[in-house]
Structures are given as structure tokens and as C-alpha cells.
């Protein structure tokens, strides 16, 4: 465990994959308590940006600092403070919900018994805990994956389309969970296409297109109108 960082700062970050430029001279600062909505059309660079923030993707140029230290100065203690819910969910389909959570809890050096039971309750999967994930609906997997990403109470929470496959009740529960995380001091970055769900949940908005940051401001009233005005239809 290490001292927590109060902010994450990206300065002139660029990343290209071959000839394709995924991020282009992107600068951004996110503070504790923020829920940053990362919005933009497909291919805007949102997932690459989440990868950079998760330290899984190395920028070609530019700096990423967590608190006052550069990302590469932290190593494993930094990864202990990052939780990522990716689009691919990061779950083993052949294992049960309990086995998945136990494996990751142990990997993070947590007391697995307590952490796993609490996560199963939050995901509302106690009665399906010993079923294989392969038999779960997308919504159930999504809830499980979210709790897997939050098992270790990360400081920086990165959520890529967290509402995919969820029913109305689960959407509400996840939104409440995100608000609760932010109010407890976490830095939340939420990449989504769903402007209706983002509206009212995010406290800041970053609009991206073709790897560039077009807008970074406090969440406006009428997010959809602002999005259309900036990005287009």
C-alpha cells in the first residue's frame, strides 16, 4: 500500500499504433472526487486513453503523473490503486463467480473470504456464486466484472461502458455505486456512448474525436445538446 494520489495529470500525451494515431497531444487533469465522462464516437481514442491511465499502454510521447510522481516511478504500488472495468470484462468464463473473485482478491493480497463475500453481495450474485460465469447473462457478468475491478478499493477507477447489458434496476445501482466511489475520494473516469446515462452522473465531461480532446469542462446542463454541438450528429 502507498500514499494515495490526489490527481492524475496527462500532459501532451500521444500514442500511435503503426500509422494510426490513437491519441494526439492530449492533456487532462482529473482530481479526487471527479466523475469524468469520457465521450466520443467509435475510434475516438477513449479505450486507449483508459489503457494509458491504467499504465497498460505506454504513451509514445508526453507524461502521465499520478500525484506528483510519473507513472513509471510507481510500479506495482500504483497498480494496487487502479481498478479497470474493460469492455472485455476480464473474467474467466470457465470459473465460478466466487472462484474469479477469489483469484483476483488473492492476486491483490486481500483477505479473500471477506472481500469476495462483500463483492458477491454488492453484485447481487450470492445465489449464483458457485455457478460458472459462462452461464451468466451479459448483465450478470457486467455486475461481477465491476465488483472484480473494485475489490481492492482502488483510488483511480476506470470504467469502459459500465452500463452495457444492465437492466434499469442494475443501471441505477451502478450509477449509485459510481457516485459513492467519487464521494469517498476516488477518481472516476467513465467512458460511454450513452449520453442519457452519463447526463446527471458525470461531474465533468471530456469530448474526444480522432484521438484529440475537443472539450474538457464541468458537466453542462443538457449533455446531448452540447455533444451534438461539439461532435456533430
Amino acid at each position: 500500500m502507498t500514499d494515495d494520489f490526489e490527481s492524475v495529470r496527462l500532459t501532451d500525451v500521444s500514442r500511435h499504433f503503426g500509422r494510426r494515431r490513437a491519441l494526439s497531444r492530449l492533456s487532462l487533469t482529473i482530481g479526487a472526487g471527479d466523475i469524468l465522462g469520457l465521450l466520443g464516437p467509435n475510434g475516438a481514442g477513449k479505450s486507449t486513453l483508459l489503457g494509458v491511465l491504467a499504465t497498460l499502454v505506454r504513451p509514445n510521447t508526453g507524461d502521465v503523473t499520478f500525484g506528483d510522481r510519473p507513472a513509471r516511478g510507481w510500479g506495482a504500488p500504483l497498480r494496487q490503486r487502479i481498478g479497470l472495468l474493460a469492455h472485455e470484462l476480464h473474467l474467466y468464463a470457465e470459473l465460478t463467480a466466487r472462484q474469479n473473485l477469489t483469484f483476483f482478491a488473492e492476486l491483490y493480497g486481500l483477505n479473500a473470504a471477506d472481500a469476495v463475500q462483500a463483492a458477491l453481495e454488492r453484485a447481487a450474485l450470492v445465489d449464483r456464486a458457485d455457478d460458472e460465469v459462462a452461464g451468466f447473462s451479459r448483465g450478470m457478468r457486467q455486475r461481477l466484472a465491476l465488483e472484480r475491478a473494485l475489490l481492492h478499493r482502488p483510488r483511480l477507477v476506470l470504467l469502459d461502458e459500465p452500463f452495457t447489458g444492465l437492466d434499469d434496476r442494475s443501471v441505477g445501482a451502478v450509477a449509485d455505486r459510481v457516485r459513492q466511489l467519487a464521494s469517498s475520494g476516488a477518481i472516476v473516469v467513465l467512458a460511454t456512448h450513452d449520453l442519457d446515462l452519463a447526463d446527471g452522473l458525470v461531474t465533468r465531461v471530456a469530448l474526444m474525436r480522432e484521438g484529440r480532446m475537443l472539450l474538457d469542462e464541468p458537466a453542462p446542463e443538457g449533455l446531448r445538446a452540447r455533444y451534438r454541438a461539439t461532435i456533430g450528429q
Partner: protein
Amino acid sequence: MGPQREVKMFFRVALLVLRKDFAIEAKSREILTTTLLFAVSCVLVFAFALVKEGEAPPDAAPAILWIAIMFSGTLALGRTFERERYGETLRALLLAPAPRPALYVGKLLGIVLLLGVAELVLVPLVAFFFGAPFFVQPVLMALLLVAGTVGFAAVGTLFAAMLMRVRTRDVLLPILLYPITVPVIIAGVRGTAALLASPPDEVTATMWLAIVVAFDVVFVTLSLWTFEVLMTE
């Protein structure tokens, strides 16, 4: 963290990964079954092609044994990492605050154990069809098999992990793997042939064993050094 705790954590993580892979394989038996079937088929094809009227060609057995190990090992390597690709779970492993080389060691141990099981079937099978007295020098033979398997799996595990995001990984894995592991296969074949000679040539077999062990030391060390860098996108 003290060095003793670091070493303890390293092996704890490696064993966690191994245990997780074992739990998945115990349920699906997919990799074990396909590896064994492929290995046995390989030996049978050679037996039908080469054994005439109950007489096997002299010196064929060592080559057939090591070819079967190499081919079935390549199949197992590909499948093991394919499993980590479905849910992008390798990314989740890389994001954990665990020493990344420990993830490599966990995967390596899994492949070595899997090939060990395949060899338990292959050695008696080749001995039966080709009349090879593998059990005259059981200790040296076992050491040669263990060292050869570790060398092959050490390089294979690194390449299979590296190629996970490459579309043509199934083609590229053998193309990259076989030229580099040629010394292991040659040493394995020559060492085994020396043990099958009448009388067994222990001195020559020990020399080939030493070459394989040297290969193991070099490539396991190299893999541990490079795994973290190569796995960062």
C-alpha cells in the same frame, strides 16, 4: 519490502496463476485432451510409417519422442494463451500489483506440468512401438526430459504471451519458436540416443544434459528480464 518477502510474494503469485490454470483445466480438460491426442497421434503416424514387420529403424525413437513433445507442446502453448485472450484476462493479470515475471513463471510451470503429463504417456508409447529401452538409465532420462521441457516451454511461454495480440499468432508461434529451440531438441535427441546405446553412454548423455541446462538458465533468465517490457503495449 524485504528481499525475503519479495521472493515469497513472487512464488505466491506464480502458484496462484498455476492454481487458477489448473482449476480451469480440471473443468474443461480441453488442453490436456488435445495435447495428449495430438502427441499420441504423432507417435502412431511415425510407428505406422517406419515400423516394418515389427522392426523399427535404429535410432528413430529419440527423434520421434522429441518431435512429439515439441509439436504437442506448441499446440498446448497456443491454447493456454488463447484462454487468456477471450476475456482479455491477461490485461487483468498485468494490472495486478504482482511482479509481472511471476505471472510468466506461473504460466511456465503450467506448461511444464502439462508436457510432463504428456511425456508420461509418450515415453512408454515410443518405448513400446520402437523397442526403445528408455528405462535403462531412468534418472538421466528423466533429467534430460525435464531440462528439455523447461527449455522449450521457457521460450514458448514468452513467445506465446508476446504474440497474443497478433492476428497470425498460430502461424508465427512455430516459426519463431522452432529455430530458437533447435539446440534443445538436438541436445535432447542426442542425449536420449546416447542413453539408448548399448551399453549406455552416460558421459555423452551428461554432456548433452549440461547443454540443455545451460540453455534453460540463459532463456529463463532472459524471459524474466524481458517479460515486463514485452508485455507493455
